[in-house]
């Protein structure tokens, strides 16, 4: 029992698996982007370049550590550590190897959304504490972006929760698996709209291509990451990968519940990994297709279209549920 517990915390679906998946997702992301652009992408480091993210990580760990004059050493130290620790914590709430997540309680969906807000605030703090004009500009943009995507993200995530009648991610997943619907258990059009909206907000949360104004390297050097070197940058890169994994996994477990994973326990991890990879590939593909939006365009899109749409979606889901029962 104790060994099983330790195995699930440290090996699968615990730290070792999550870190390996995070590195794998970064490699996959770069490969998909390269394919879209008709390139090879990482190729020589390990078979097909699969060790590239690991090499980047180790190299960054071994680089010189610089904290600029005037920057807050405390924030620049604590921030990157928390940026890794928080998504790692949230990943424990996601059901991966079976019906139940490692940590499962009523309200784990709210906890995950809360952790996502905290990471966005940390990003702002790191940029602000760097004492650099470009980092401050990136931090302001990231804060503005957070104000735009956070509300529709939470509202959209509430739709599957409403249908399942629970705020626990495991329960939502279980409800869909038992409902037997491969895509979403409630009315298919609403499910599809909710899925697309959630993915849209996820891209903004991850600061990926249509919404990467906070770290736009062609305008503001590297945005809020400008002054970070060595270990701090390594941790932040890892934290971003973990957040990518978290949101891909969350999308998979909120929207892509499948009955097969509920029938047998050994199919569940395979099905989870495949669904997460599918979500990640979709996000990478979008990244390859899009150009960057200005921050005011991002704000306008979210406040004029996405937020009313997500409110309407929530209303429609509630009404549909009322009439169906």
């Amino acid at each position, binding site marked *: 029992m104790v060994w099983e517990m330790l195995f699930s915390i440290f090996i699968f679906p615990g730290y070792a698996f999550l870190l390996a998946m995070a590195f794998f997702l970064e490699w996959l992301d770069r490969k998909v982007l390269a394919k879209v652009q008709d390139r090879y*992408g990482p*190729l*020589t480091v390990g078979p097909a370049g699969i060790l590239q993210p690991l090499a980047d990580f180790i190299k960054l760990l071994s680089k010189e550590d610089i904290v600029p004059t005037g920057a807050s050493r405390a924030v620049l130290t604590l921030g990157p550590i928390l940026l890794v620790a928080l998504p790692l914590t949230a990943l424990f709430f996601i059901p991966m190897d079976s019906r139940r997540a490692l940590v499962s309680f009523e309200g784990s969906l709210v906890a995950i959304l809360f952790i996502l807000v905290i990471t966005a605030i940390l990003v702002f703090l790191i940029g602000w504490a760097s004492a650099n004009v470009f980092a401050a500009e990136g931090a302001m943009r990231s804060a503005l972006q957070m104000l735009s995507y956070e509300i529709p993200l939470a509202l959209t995530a509430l739709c599957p929760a409403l249908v399942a009648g629970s705020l626990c991610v495991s329960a939502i997943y279980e409800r869909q698996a038992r409902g037997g619907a491969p895509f979403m258990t409630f009315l298919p059009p609403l499910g599809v709209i909710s899925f697309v909206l959630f993915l849209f907000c996820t891209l903004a949360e991850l600061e990926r291509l249509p919404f990467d104004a906070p770290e736009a390297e062609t305008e503001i050097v590297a945005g809020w990451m400008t002054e970070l070197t060595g270990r701090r940058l390594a941790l932040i890169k890892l934290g971003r990968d973990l957040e990518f994994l978290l949101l891909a996994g969350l999308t998979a477990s909120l929207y892509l519940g499948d009955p097969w994973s509920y029938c047998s326990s050994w199919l569940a991890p395979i099905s989870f990994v495949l669904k997460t990879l599918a979500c990640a590939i979709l996000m990478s593909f979008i990244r390859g297709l899009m150009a960057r939006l200005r921050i005011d365009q991002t704000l306008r899109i979210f406040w004029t279209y996405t937020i009313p749409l997500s409110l309407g979606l929530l209303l429609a889901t509630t009404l549909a549920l009322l009439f169906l029962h």
Partner: protein
Amino acid sequence: MGLVGWARASSPWILHFNTGACNACDIEVVAALTPRFDIERFGVIKVGSPRHADVLIVTGPVTRESRDRLIRIYQQMPEPKFVMAVGACAISGGIFAGCYNVCGGAANVLPKVDVVVPGCPPKPEAIIDGLAMLLKKVRGGR
């Protein structure tokens, strides 16, 4: 060569700085990143911030105007850092050597230049060759 040596030789992130080039070398450096040559195969990422970079690629003769900026950018990079001088001008000043406004090549200003890639401008193949030489040097220890 060790784990760290392997990691350093496997992920050289480059920063490209034009110290006054005519843009020919810059086009060739960018061409090395584009789909036909794609140096991301070797783990190269072009970064925007000197704080993230491992390799500084200098193109063009160092003018008196850009001299201080080149030094500052070099100092902002974290150790271990490497410098690649691409093109005849970055090596010696090229046809601009001896002009009243030119300090010569990158080696006249920076403490060290690890690899030079001659040419006016060098082809992307030559830049990749220079990068491979640099990586061999990195792998063998500093």
